[in-house]
């Protein structure tokens, strides 16, 4: 018996070791060949051109990314029925990132080097973007990342159509300060975005005399919030700054509400609570609390009415639209605008033409910054109403210029080192 067991274990170990080695090996090869293969293989001779999408349709973040895929497909269809880009129809090649950064990188490599797509739309977690970044840089591809994130990045091969920190986190803090909040409790899921965003919150708080009463993180997907809610209740802060994401939001707000805490005593300002999350949490558990995004389904603009109607006609009247969907949708349209400005699908031409390209998105007019590849966005604080929709209670004076490294804020000096 022991002998057979050893026999089965050994080949398995060898297989695992082999995997690790080949992974490292191919990585080195890629880097070496990267500079040489930067020439893109995009085929623009026919009457259609290929584009790619990578979103997770399986795994932990499939819940959030499936709806983003819907928005991307809608944008591609709209562009096609409107005559395409430079007279060419778009041929969307869709891949499943499976909530795994390694899979994202593999699929990105396939799309860029073997399908030869002109651009890729997608990516969700920062880990997935970081994993894809070298693939796009080494192979001269283009990624349109449509998700609010923690900033501190700019790549010539990525355009960021989601908010960076000065378009979401800083406005949320400005709003709370304006409302007379003098102490905060920070709670978040334990990964890069909440930790980075709370570092910004703490720097801001120190400069503005706001006291941080506590800071807690739970593993992604955690459902056990009673200890944290106990801590929050006894700390008695003016407001809670919430960067809990995904499924855990449900458990957090249910625990918060059943502990007898309400928005009147202690409002929760959430960074990742969109229309879909409100529906999952149950509006009775989250009513009157606050959210900070650039887009809400309730925005009263002609562009948004068109977007919401088109989305519902395509996917059903019970569906909601949210900020991450709007940003991804905007990313596709921005690519079209950039290509038309450049008059070419070539990546270098698109990068050249990007600066100043604008698009009337559902969330307002956005303009691309050619230096950092982010876009200007209007910040909006929303409040959750009894019908489950989020209504704007404050909005910035026009679009805020993107500042992914927070260089224009004195209090943020300590963050850059």
């Amino acid at each position, binding site marked *: 018996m022991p002998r057979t067991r050893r026999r089965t274990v050994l080949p398995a170990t060898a297989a695992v070791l082999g995997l690790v080695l080949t992974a490292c090996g191919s990585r080195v090869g890629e880097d070496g060949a990267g500079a040489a293969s930067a020439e893109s293989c995009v085929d623009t001779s026919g009457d259609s051109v290929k584009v790619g999408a990578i979103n997770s349709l399986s795994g932990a973040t499939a819940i959030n990314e499936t709806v983003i895929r819907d928005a991307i497909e809608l944008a591609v269809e709209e562009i096609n029925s409107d005559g395409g880009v430079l007279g060419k129809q778009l041929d969307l090649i869709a891949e499943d990132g499976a909530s795994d950064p390694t899979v994202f990188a593999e699929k990105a490599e396939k799309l860029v080097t073997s399908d030869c797509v002109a651009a890729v739309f997608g990516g969700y977690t920062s880990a997935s973007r970081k994993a894809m970044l070298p693939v796009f840089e080494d192979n001269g591809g283009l990624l349109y990342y449509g998700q609010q994130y923690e900033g501190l990045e700019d790549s010539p091969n990525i355009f960021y159509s989601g908010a960076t920190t000065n378009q979401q986190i800083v406005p949320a803090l400005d709003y709370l300060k304006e409302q007379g909040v003098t102490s905060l409790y920070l709670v978040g899921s334990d990964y890069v975005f909440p930790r980075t965003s709370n570092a910004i919150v703490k720097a801001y708080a120190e400069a503005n005399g706001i006291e941080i009463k506590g800071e807690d993180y739970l593993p992604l997907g955690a459902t056990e919030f009673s200890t944290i809610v106990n801590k929050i209740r006894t700390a008695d802060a003016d407001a809670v700054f919430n960067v809990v994401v995904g499924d*855990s939001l449900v458990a957090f707000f249910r625990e918060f509400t059943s502990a*007898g805490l309400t928005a009147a005593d202690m409002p929760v300002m959430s960074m990742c609570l969109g229309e879909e999350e409100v529906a999952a*949490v149950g509006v009775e558990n989250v009513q009157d609390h606050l959210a900070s995004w650039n887009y809400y389904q309730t925005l009263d603009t002609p562009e948004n009415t068109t977007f919401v109607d088109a989305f519902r006609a395509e996917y059903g009247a019970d569906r909601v639209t949210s900020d991450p969907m709007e940003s991804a949708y905007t990313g596709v349209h921005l690519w079209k605008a950039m290509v038309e400005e450049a008059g070419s699908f070539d990546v270098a031409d698109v990068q050249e033409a990007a600066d100043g390209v604008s698009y009337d998105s559902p969330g307002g007019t956005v303009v691309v910054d050619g230096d950092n590849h982010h876009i200007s966005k209007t910040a909006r604080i929303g409040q959750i109403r009894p019908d489950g929709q989020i209504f704007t209670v404050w909005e910035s004076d026009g679009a805020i210029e993107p500042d992914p490294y927070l260089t224009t804020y004195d209090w943020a000096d300590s963050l850059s080192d």
Partner: protein
Amino acid sequence: MDVVVSQVFTGLSTGSIMLLAATGLVLTFGQMGVINMAHGEFIMAGSYTAFVVQQATASVGASLLISLVAGFVVGGLLGVIVEVTLIRHLYHRPLDTLLVTFGVGLVLQQIARDIFGAPAVNVRAPSWLSGSVEVLGAVIPRTRLFILVLALVCLAALAAALKYTALGRRTRAVMQSRDLAESSGISSRRVDLTTFFIGSGLAGVAGVALTLIGSTSSTVGQSYLINAFLVVVAGGLGQLRGALIAAFVLGLLQSFIEYSTTASVAQALIFVVIVLFLQVRPQGLFSLKTRSLV
């Protein structure tokens, strides 16, 4: 003082949730030796049953009670289907069962996403469970009290069934010695099937109860699965009282460590405690005493 009371209750509540998720596993993993990675998806099936029942019934209060029964049946039937089609062929091959049931779990998650859509759905708690009660200055949510009671009731019912019913006696006989039980005329096949039905059904009940606490989405089961396995392993395979003690000890440890440190540290320390404990007692808190030579 009220902090201590709060944390004791939090610990008991965390423990009761682990216990509820683990009770079914005590049967299927502990007694039958099947490492069922799809147990989490049986929990999820229970959660979605609660959602469907709530959509179909007018009263939120009644829907919870109907769901508990319906969740048991749905979880149990799923378990039986998986047992008959797959696991039956893989007894005595634990590694294969592990991989196969892991695959079954992924398939079930995808089916749930196809039927109910990717975003999580909301199952409302009945009004008699909303809000909290105050005990010695500590605020205790009613939903958590309900789950604590439900977990103890499920465990007691299962213990009573094993001890006093004919089926229970047969189950224990098969567990102690499959060959001897068969040669005494017990159909181990039927016992296996019934045990799997009850074990998976209890996962369904857990799923219904967990809609009161967390989200209802395709991945809900995964977040409870690891802790459920921990409870069964630390308590001793097939030992209900072991699971009971292990669940509450782990829950209390978690809540007090988390209060003084952070959730991630608490989770890691729990694993350290269990690893150390299993070094000393590899068989868990309790173990089956037999005169068998193997």
